[in-house]
């Protein structure tokens, strides 16, 4: 009897080459079934107070901001049964977002120094089956909901970073 599908993150490392950050995620599939997982970063958050960087390769909890031009599906990759692999991702050294406010005349952009992160949280959505888009005209779910429902599990990993 096959064990429950479980993707494990065994390590993460962050390399700063002064232009971009290289995130290397080491993964393990201890089960006897190929697992399919996100290969696209869907969200990055940085808490300057705790210097914690969150890198999310899932659609969990993300807001459906609408209207928009397209719902972009993530890219996927697969990990063989009983094997290990690494996911190489490129992150910006800083992230930009709008400062919160109310009815400002002009928006103000704030920049967050992601490269100063001392802690990192990584989350990856995975499933035992590949993702196929829903062909039903009336599924009753938003595309984001379809994505979150696809995920059979979320592999999570937290690490205190050394000097990078």
């Amino acid at each position, binding site marked *: 009897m096959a064990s429950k599908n479980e993707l494990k993150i065994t390590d993460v490392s962050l390399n700063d080459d002064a232009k971009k950050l290289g995130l290397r995620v080491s993964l393990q599939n201890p089960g006897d079934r190929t697992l399919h997982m996100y290969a696209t970063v869907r969200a990055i958050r940085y808490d300057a107070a705790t210097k914690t960087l969150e890198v999310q390769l899932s659609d969990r909890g*993300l807001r459906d901001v609408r209207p928009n031009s397209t719902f972009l599906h993530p890219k996927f990759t697969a990990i063989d049964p009983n094997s290990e692999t690494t996911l190489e991702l490129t992150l*910006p050294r800083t992230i930009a977002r709008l400062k919160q406010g109310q*009815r400002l005349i002009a928006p103000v952009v704030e920049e967050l120094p992601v490269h100063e992160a001392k802690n990192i949280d990584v989350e990856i959505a995975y499933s035992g089956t590949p993702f196929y888009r829903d062909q039903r005209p009336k599924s009753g779910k938003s595309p984001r909901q379809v994505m979150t429902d696809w995920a059979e599990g979320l592999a999570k990993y937290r690490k205190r970073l050394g000097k990078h």
Partner: protein
Amino acid sequence: MSLFITTDTGGAGAGNVFPMNVEVDLFSISHADLGDGTHAGFGEDPPNNNLIQITYDRSDGGIPATRLDTLVNTNFGVNANGIDIIVIGAGANFTLLDGTMAAGNGVTLPVGDADNPTGSVLVIYDTSDNNGTGICVRKQGDGDGTYKLEEPSSVILYHELSHAFHLANGDPLSLSASGCTASPEENRAETDENDMRDQLGLPHRDATDHCGSAGCQSSSCCIVASVASGSIYSDAVNSLREVRDGILRGSEIGHDFFNHFYQDYYGFSPEVCRLMARSPELLNLIRVRFLAPLTVVLDLIRAHSIDRLDDEALGLRFAANLSKESELLNLTHSEIELARVLLAGAPLPDTDIPLVTELANLLGERAWSSTFVKWTLVEPIKMLVDALSWHRENVNLNEIGKRLGASFDQWSVQMPITPVWNTLSMYTLNEELEFLERTLLSTEESRRFFGKRLVAALPAEKAVVVSARWRM
């Protein structure tokens, strides 16, 4: 006063917003309108308070230019400052408040939205072409579920300006939609977007579809077939994809059926691909003895159950398919028998095909125990293998058509019934029954037989619907 661009002159904007890119895209929307002797064309005022106001005295008669003219020269009254719409040209590092990456997308935020700190309608769109990867959407007329059509940044901006126009004008449509179907508001913006595509000489986007992908790609399908045929675009894979996406997965029961099928199929199929990678002979066996029969039999099932071909026409269709699949036609008796043995999970005869024993063991352990795999793959291939044997025995085509039709009817009524049947509303239940009548259960007898199984699986109030519809 109406349309403005955020500059990078203040705060942390430098290097994070790209007003020049927005200007270029707006200029493209104006159809490079530099004016004529009478009209000044596209222009801009000097930056003020981190905003650049766009000016436009139009000399171009095109639809995008006319829309831009309206956006620039209308006082929509969104706020007392007269700054109705602000556009931010984002880079690949731009995120919304929840961390969602702006790369590859555009959003239009009404006043009061949690992500909009201004008193204006705010457009944020990616000017980095998804960090160089590009964005692709569905092309009008493509029914194969692939994203092949590029979405340049000027098209994204024009799309968002459609939303901005209607938000500023106070007449946005509903955003309610499910799956990848475009909501009424998105459908309108995508229809508008196609005007910009016309101006750029690009094909139209399918305005009913709102999904896309990073980079142009094909919808994945059927990994064993893709590997065995050598391409995800091969005729075999295209025909399997068409049956899957064009017919079956569009219904509730088809969608749920495939969810169950995938659960089992992907439990063994990647390993089959690994075996094929190590043995070209095995790859050839799977391509000729499994994939080719499956492709042919699905075409024949469709001809019988949807197109309702009679016995003679079905026999002729079988012959026509064989003439296209010469390798199938040339299979020897022992080659056909090996396929039959593999499908049955019976002990293998002596064979010199490398890794065929491993394949047999894998299929025996993980594939053939699945009712979904059996019904979807094994039984259809077996039916075609039977027909090949009849053909070798010189049975006439009319008789082969008759036997195949009978086999299809016997097979169709054995479709596994998944739990989703119990969750359907009465209305949807009727729709699904009608779907089965059109696609799978072509005779009254087959409906009654399948209906009996369904009645046994459904609660009484739903069983009545089935009994009444199929006069059981």
